[in-house]
């Protein structure tokens, strides 16, 4: 807020003749907590342990219904490209969970 005030003041002083003076002030924010709401289902723990450190559960829960093979490919992409430290043995449980959650059809945020 302080930075905004300074810039607006500078713009007014600058008028039309010359470019306004620009001042930068340190900025910081606190982002909201991520409650990690995941509906119950087989493999839920595997998802919590392997997926939600990098992103909120909504990344997975909001996806359109896709096949088991597509979920396997998505988890594979997280490991191969985004270097997610996923326990290889947990992959079937993660995929089971996503297929289960999508099969239940809950329109959960």
């Amino acid at each position, binding site marked *: 807020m302080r930075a905004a005030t300074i810039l607006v003041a500078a713009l007014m002083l600058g008028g039309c003749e010359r470019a306004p003076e620009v001042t*930068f002030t340190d900025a910081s924010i606190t982002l909201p907590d991520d409650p990690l709401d995941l509906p119950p289902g087989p493999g839920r723990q595997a998802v919590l342990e392997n997926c939600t*450190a990098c992103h909120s559960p909504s990344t997975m829960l909001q996806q359109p219904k896709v096949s088991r093979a597509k979920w396997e490919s998505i988890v594979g992409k997280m490991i191969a490209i985004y270097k997610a430290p996923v326990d290889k043995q947990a992959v079937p449980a993660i995929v089971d969970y996503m297929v289960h959650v999508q099969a239940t059809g809950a329109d959960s945020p």
Partner: protein
Amino acid sequence: MSEGRLTRRALMASAGGAVLAAPVLAQKLVDLGLPGGPSLRPIEPAFPGKGEMIVQRIRPPLLETPMAVFREGVITPNDRHFVRWNWDMPTAVNAAAHRVAVGGAVRTPVSLTLDDIVAAGEQIEVVAINQCAGNGRGLSEPRVTGTQWGNGAMSCARWTGVRLKDVLARAGLAPGAKRVRFAGLDVPLTDGAPQFIKSIPLDIALRDDVLVAWGMNGEPLPLLHGFPLRIVVPGWFSTYWVKMLSTVEVLTGEDDSYYVADSYRFPARTITPEDKDFPTVPITAMPPRAFITSHADGAVVTKGQPLTLEGIAMGGDAALSSVDLIGEGWQVGCTLGPDEGPYAFRRWSATIPAVTSDLANIGARAANTKGAVQPEVLHWNPSGYARNVIERITLRAQ
């Protein structure tokens, strides 16, 4: 592993702790109308400096602008501007310590302070739409995976900064310069993952309206929008508008980095959902789009009365030339509102003299001065990029 990055042990500990603390909240939800769902999204939690936003993801933040905001004007207020981060964003920036390294194929690599950037050239203002390449992805049919945006991953602001070419001139281009690549302070959480870096061809980088911007609607860029500096490429999708700019790198060849060579790409020709192997090109310039903002799908209008419809439109990478309101077998030319420049939203309105029956599948169709016109049929692609099919609604006459 470097400090702050993820180990399996830290990852499990953080996940377990957060689960125990998870509150159960009754939330107001917004229905984005995504075919087949899931379609409901919360408007909580609140984010610092933001008003009511559709929360697509808390971490890293993905916040969608509610369509109602576009009824209010062509400039999107900063607190309603959509937010998109690929990797975790830094939550604090020390202005005095911030530097922008300009290197690669340059005569003299330089490290610039924020004051150096401001002093690099003439201050420029551009009104330009910032739109995610995946805006409207959730409306694709057949559906595709990725962030399931409605049509609110777009906003329009007045950006203030200096020309990128003036910043490049501080270092001087070396012979053979072909592209200019940008990196910000956001880095991957995991070792070995691709950093979110993006590049544009030199001829685009040298345009008079491509900026290194610090101002957004007369205020400093909020952190969520890339404080202290972001790239602005009017007419191009926001994937190139790198936030928290810290590195400008001049390349002498093609860019083989992940987010240019492998991601954010679009089929080079029309494809069907069954097609597997097809050539792709980077997703770059925006096509025209238009939206009805005065009425929602299914709204009731009065039979026998005149009806005025309103909305917003954009030309994309060229000025808007016309907007038509179209129905099933009819069309009406629209009146355009004030012109804030070729890359801004522009309001439109059209009046139907008397409503005689339901207005089925009506939509606004924009065209730009390069001759691009919104298509009747979606250019389907597996990443849901560059949606610009005519958006249609049905109004009920009573």
